[in-house]
């Protein structure tokens, strides 16, 4: 036990004396969560639009007022003829133009049908479809208000409601993803680098010719990183709660336990990487290319797995991050208990045991 403590103390010396690693260790999570939370967002706020009101009547005025009042849009231009639509788009001044037909109000009352055209700049397709959805919902709302006092038989009005993230805040989606990426990266990359560093410096040679057993070396190596990763997880959760007001609907305790499990999975992966790479550079490349990219692209963090081609969907099952993201989203946003994430937890547990098993088998007790 004394040997183990001595070893762990030595690891902490390494970590705290290497200012660069320390910066990566604690700077990166904060930078990433702030970046994803503030800058990279799917929401639309204050989108500039223009209005072409050929009707200029009560109904059209009311709708324009509603749009102007919403925080999603700001009306920057009122244009007079249809011909100026193209030029205003070309200048890039606005993302959308709302065009009311002649006699909009009259048609609405007499014909019970009136047309309004929403033109969006689809050079950014996601943005365009989001804008048109937002405007449609404003129009629909106005329509419902009009119909309130008139009874029309057999009318089906679809009412969609977003649950768990009613405001469609993208930060809700990013927090579990960022947390996963950070924990994976810190745990796997840092351990694999710190183990290969011993090989590169030749100190592994001395450690082998000592009474230390392989598992003592490995656990001694990863123990400090479990500790640091837990701190990281706590920082990320605190930031998301207090800076972005992301709710934690489920049990914080369960979230903690699952995070520790995922940290151990990542550490086991890191050990595995260190057994197959001889230098710190190789270890870093394998961690970045082999872990970072799949974790970001195939885990459902950014791109939904259900819309991937089938082969990729199958591959995504072997990405530990995929299961952890499901667990974190479930606990944080849906507030579910262990019963609902049992399958995912067991998968992570099995993966961890597999990684540890393979690394112990591959760990070299000699130099070749």
């Amino acid at each position, binding site marked *: 036990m004394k040997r183990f403590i*001595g070893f762990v103390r030595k690891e902490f010396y390494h970590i705290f004396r290497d200012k660069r690693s320390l910066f990566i260790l604690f700077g990166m999570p904060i930078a990433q969560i702030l970046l994803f939370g503030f800058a990279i967002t799917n929401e639309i706020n204050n989108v500039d639009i223009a209005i072409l009101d050929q009707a200029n009547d009560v109904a059209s005025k009311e709708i324009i007022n509603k749009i102007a009042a919403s925080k999603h849009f700001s009306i920057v231009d009122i244009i007079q003829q249809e011909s100026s639509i193209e030029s205003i788009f070309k200048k890039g001044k606005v993302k959308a133009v709302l065009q009311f037909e002649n006699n909009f109000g009259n048609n609405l009352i007499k014909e019970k049908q009136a047309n309004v055209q929403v033109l969006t700049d689809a050079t950014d397709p996601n943005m365009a479809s989001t804008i048109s959805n937002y405007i449609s919902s404003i129009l629909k709302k106005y329509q419902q208000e009009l119909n309130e006092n008139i009874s029309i038989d057999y009318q089906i009005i679809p009412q969609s409601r977003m649950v768990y993230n009613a405001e469609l805040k993208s930060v809700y989606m990013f927090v579990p993803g960022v947390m996963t990426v950070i924990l994976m990266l810190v745990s796997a990359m840092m351990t694999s680098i710190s183990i290969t560093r011993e090989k590169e410096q030749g100190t592994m040679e*001395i450690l082998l010719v000592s009474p230390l057993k392989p598992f003592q070396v490995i656990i001694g190596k990863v123990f400090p990183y479990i500790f640091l990763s837990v701190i990281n997880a706590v920082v990320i959760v605190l930031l998301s709660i207090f800076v972005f007001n992301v709710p934690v609907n489920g049990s914080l305790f369960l979230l903690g336990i699952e995070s520790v499990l995922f940290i151990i999975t990542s550490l086991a992966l890191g050990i595995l990487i260190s057994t197959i790479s001889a230098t710190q550079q190789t270890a870093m490349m394998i961690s970045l290319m082999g872990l970072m990219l799949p974790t970001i692209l195939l885990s459902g963090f950014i791109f939904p797995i259900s819309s991937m081609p089938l082969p990729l969907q199958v591959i995504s099952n072997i990405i530990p991050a995929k299961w952890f993201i499901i667990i974190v989203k479930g606990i944080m946003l849906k507030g579910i208990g262990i019963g609902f994430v049992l399958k995912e937890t067991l998968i992570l547990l099995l993966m961890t045991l597999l990684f540890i098993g393979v690394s112990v088998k591959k760990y070299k007790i000699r*130099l070749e």
Partner: protein
Amino acid sequence: MGITISNISKSYGEITALSDISFDVKPGELFGLIGPDGAGKTTLFRILTTLLIADNGQATVAGYDVLNDYKSIRNSVGYMPGRFSLYQDLTVEENLNFFATIFGTTIEENYDLVKDIYVQIEPFKNRRAGKLSGGMKQKLALSCALIHKPKVLFLDEPTTGVDPVSRKEFWEMLKRLQKKGITILVSTPYMDEAALCDRIALIQDGNILEIDTPNAIVSHFPKPLYNISAHNMYNLIESLTNYEHTYSIFPFGEFVHYTDKRDPIDKASLKTYLEFQGLTDIKIEKTQPTIEDTFMELAK
């Protein structure tokens, strides 16, 4: 409690590092493994310290088999690899403390063993190991290899890249350690250090050329050896190379070590020949062969 090596062979793919090596190191002996770079010294060290497995042959260290009892060996030997292999970002004291801890001991417990060496680096005990000078690093590495009171000490080229004064001190320390009953196997490319060992093995290209005491090895030198000097070293070597009676020549500092095919040597005709080649200040004197001469002769 010494080391026995019998018929050890090891090759890396096509390259033979050690071929059929056998020798013993007696308990308490200071044994030197002398040979140039690439002779197979480090490979032999790694086999004996259980880091590599030999292709053929057996070896024991302190009575333990290198293959089956590797754990016992790892408990009872001290190993100082050729490359400086301590933690550069840890201080002198932290390094020593760490190695004491992982061997289940403390600095205080074995302080008498490392005292002579450690007092010299103690003034720098709060300095990071990476910032020490070459000689200091080696002293620290030796302290770390000794701190658990090993029965056998393996030192792979401990003095390579170390200044002459530190080298001398280092060997004095080894002598003192030997008196404390530690068996020491040390390798070096420096022939002058060989004379300080009890026995030496000359090794080249994976083969042992000769094993004996330094004095005996020198006395095995087959021919009378001469120091020849002249005002122009380059011209001297050139002339001797072309001399029909030359058996061997070997530049040695300000002299050329020369042996002749004839027995006895005809000093006068050699001098005449050299003068004829345009050399002046010619001196020809008989001298004692060194281990280096023997090595060069055996390595021919």
